[in-house]
């Protein structure tokens, strides 16, 4: 299945790292994922970014413990390229997702970088069944040439250690 092409929208950037600017950014990121615009989602990340979904509550490191997802930039690019493949059988049929982002707070901020905590709920519908995911996201954001960028993103699922079916669409 090919996804409909959409016009690329300018990245939201109010010029300051306040909670409202961060929330606007996170809602934009969620929209890109919900609409299957994975290339655009990838372009939100810096060139040495990482993306992490731990397998255990309060997991300290992705290096000594397994993760549901732990992608450095190279693997994240491969993940996104695969998502676009017509031969990705685990996305045949494709999932439809709907995300709600809330409780956005700034954990730590400097002039050109900040760490943002937010809550999310995600509905994923595929092949006649609907799954609910929820949890906490931490984003490390910086201001780059093209607007706000993600240096790293950590997503802690409430049920990270439950038996899961394949997790294909990023959180």
């Amino acid at each position, binding site marked *: 299945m090919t996804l409909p092409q959409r016009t690329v929208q300018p990245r939201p950037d109010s010029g300051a790292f306040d909670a409202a600017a961060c929330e606007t950014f996170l809602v934009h990121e969620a929209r890109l994922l919900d609409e299957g615009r994975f290339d655009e989602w990838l372009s939100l990340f810096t*060139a*040495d970014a*990482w993306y992490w*979904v731990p*397998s*255990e509550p309060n*997991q300290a490191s*992705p*290096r*000594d*413990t*397994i*993760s*549901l*997802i*732990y*992608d*450095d*930039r*190279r*693997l*994240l*690019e*491969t*993940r996104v*390229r*695969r998502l676009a*493949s017509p*031969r*990705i*059988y*685990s996305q*045949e049929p494709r999932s439809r997702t709907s995300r709600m982002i809330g409780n956005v707070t700034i954990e730590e901020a400097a002039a050109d970088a900040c760490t943002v905590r937010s809550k999310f709920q995600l509905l994923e519908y595929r092949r006649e069944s609907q799954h609910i995911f929820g949890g906490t996201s931490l984003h490390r954001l910086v201001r780059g040439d093209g607007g706000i960028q993600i240096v790293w993103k950590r997503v802690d699922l409430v049920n990270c*250690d*439950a*038996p*899961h*079916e*394949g*997790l*294909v669409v990023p959180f």
Partner: protein
Amino acid sequence: MTVLDNELSQLIAPGRVHRRLYTDPTIFELEMQRIFEAAWVYIGHESQVKKPGDYVATQMGRKPVVLVRDGGGKVRVIRNQCAHRGALVVATDKGNAPEFTCCYHGWTYHLDGRLKAVPLNHGYPAGFDPTDPKLAMLQVPRVKSYRGFVFASGKSEGPGLEEWLGHMTTSLDDMIDRAPEGEIEAAGGVFRHAYDGNWKVYFENLCDAAHPLFTHRSSIEAAQQQSDDVHSDGTGEIAIRQMRQNGAPYSFWEENVGIWTYPNGHSFLGDYHDDAKLVAALNDPVFRDYIATMEAKQGKEKTRRTLEVRRWNSNVYPNLSFMSQFQQLRVVHPISVNETVVHTYNYRLKGAPARMFENTISFANIVNGTGSLVLTDDLEIYTRIGLGLTSAGSEWLEIGRGYAGDLPAEHGGRRGKNSTSEVYIRNMFDAWLGYMADGDGARGTRAPAPQAVAEMRQ
């Protein structure tokens, strides 16, 4: 004996099996009794219960058991059920406890399962004896460890563990002998995958060398197109190399890789990666450090002999599969005829450079990970088999690839002509029939009869 008994042997033909084996709940129930309560079933590793009182709550087949180290240091497997009203006693996945106490009426058990104390015990009738061995968290009849790998059997008689494992002990040895200090430990967490399909389907994929090129093409192509100039912290590098390796052409599997099967349904895929082209690879500084450490501890010759073992997945029927080169181990938990959960573990090689274990973790994430770019397509296949078998399509499923090429092998085994052979599936069904029909998995030694395929099709 059930009505079904007369039909069981008719569900397996040379090179074909009837689809009822994957869909019939009555057959599934019988498998749980006759295979999962009779065979040696893998329970866990001794390193998961290092100290007295350490326990892990798990399942043997579908039945809750507790793997525990008792006060005297002995590893036990006891049924997780209170002798009083039947409640599950141990409700957390793992921990340490001085004794086990039921949350209902406070019956308390020693770590080896014997009853220790009963509140209000004067209220029971004359003859109530708390020391009666039946009033216990019952021990599974036979529990045996092979160099730290703990198996249990619900049958009090039958072949001993080592006899039953047969030549597969050499694969377990390979897991352990790769540790410079000769010891391994479970570490780094557990993946739990769920799929809507029969438990056997999972096992039948583990040595299937004919599927990666097709099933995994989305990740193969994405990895082949990936630029190596893009930043990696080292974790993505191993993952991408492995995905590219999955794209080896059919000729590679037919010419360079072999498959060996043994009595009781066991098998392994061999000669896949040698350590020169292994994803860790000889030019990887981490792997070079590791080899130097091994040679310092064990000498060059022993190290060479250890590292020349080149097995991919080793499968111990009915519930254990492991991969010694990257220290991965999977345990299959059947839930119902059409639901399965698989737990996957990682092992740390004691004495190896710390970064070896980081490679193990990276490898686990990409090969066994729930969000892996590879495994998610396998899980899709398992579910699709579950769905496909609900159709009114053909009643018989093919397991005949490579049939005419089956060859006898040493140690009572049978090998395929090459790794694309489905000999390991045929071997598992021979064991299946042995357990299901007469409780003897050793029927897996049955000699191949290639001419039967031609006869069957006439």
